[in-house]
């Protein structure tokens, strides 16, 4: 982190919290589509524009944002806020990121609930629903490309599909199992070395 001593007072001030909030309001519209796509934007703002982090900090931000449950963009905002200004910084960054989208979602929800029964909206949604299925398949494809890297991961993938289809196993159980398998295979690989 790039906190210069002469500026330290500013980092404890309320105006810095507000700056965090506004910075993430500006990043928010770039989170369309979600996922890792946001990282280059965050990098350019945090490293080049604001000088709050150095380039070497970015991989750690990505690792934490990815391994924490929840949206990657939100996790990155929380982590950045936390490391710069503690809990209040984390909340300010998170709220900044969510503020514009919450407004838009509220508006869309209102429009959707009001006009949902109009014939033309129903027709539009008859087109949108299959597209959303395509969107979800693409999300699976995108994660699958990173996930299925060797025989063990393919085996885990196939077993998870089987458990879901045949036994209707709870996703929470499968996720916990995934973590365990990851850790066990890691310890195993460490021992063999």
């Amino acid at each position, binding site marked *: 982190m790039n906190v210069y001593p002469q500026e330290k007072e500013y980092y404890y001030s309320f105006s810095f919290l507000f700056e965090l909030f506004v910075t993430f309001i500006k990043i*928010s*519209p770039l*989170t*369309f589509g*979600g996922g890792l796509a946001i990282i280059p934007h965050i990098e350019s703002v945090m490293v080049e524009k604001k000088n709050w982090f150095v380039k070497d900090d970015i991989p*750690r931000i990505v*690792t*934490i944002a*990815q391994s*924490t*449950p*929840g*949206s990657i*963009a*939100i996790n990155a905002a*929380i982590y950045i806020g936390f490391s710069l200004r503690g809990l209040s910084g*984390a*909340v300010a960054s*998170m709220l900044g990121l*969510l503020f*514009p*989208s*919450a407004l838009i*979602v509220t508006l*869309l*929800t209102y429009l959707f609930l009001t006009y949902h029964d109009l014939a033309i909206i129903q027709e*539009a*949604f*008859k*087109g*949108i629903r*299959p*597209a*959303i299925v*395509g*969107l*979800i*398949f*693409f999300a*699976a*494809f995108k*994660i*699958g490309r*990173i*996930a*299925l890297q060797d025989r063990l*991961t393919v085996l*885990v*993938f196939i077993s*998870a*599909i089987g458990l*879901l*289809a045949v036994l209707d196993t709870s*996703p929470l159980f499968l*996720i916990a*199992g*995934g973590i365990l398998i990851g*850790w066990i*295979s*890691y310890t195993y690989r460490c021992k063999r070395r």
Partner: protein
Amino acid sequence: MQSILLFIEFFKIGLFGFGGGYAMIPLMDRAVEKHEWLTPEQFADIVAVAGSAPGPIATNSALFIGYQTSGIGGAVIAGVSTLLPSLIIVFLLIKVIARYQNTSLLSSGMYGIHPVITALILFAGIRMGRQNGLFSLSVEYSQLIIMAAAFILLYKKVSPVWVVTLSGIAGILIYHF
């Protein structure tokens, strides 16, 4: 009671939503079905609206589902309880990593989680497709074409907002005229 139920369910979704926004959709799908908060069609529509707004799709859908079940209060509860686990876990991770200077426990955990997430999302897609009649014999081919076109457009890095907008226009063109 409803608000406690909302809090517990969305906290669980937030806690187990490894792998980002789309990974939380299968979890929400389950909760929504279990408590009969929405019909499968309504759920697909909400994902559509949430996906066409900026911001994380998971938080957007949480706000939406919360609002549908118990108004503004429900939206706030669902939103906060999905975010709370992220706040807590990031905080814990910062402490742990500061002490051990090692992220291999995280990356090895993700190595095992990622294939599970892939399966969950794929399965959620199949489920949603079946509920909307996409994989039955009586399917209208235009619907399958829209599904495939959406996939290809996303692969070509077209923004989901455009995909949703275009498919909406396609729906109006096909079914209105």
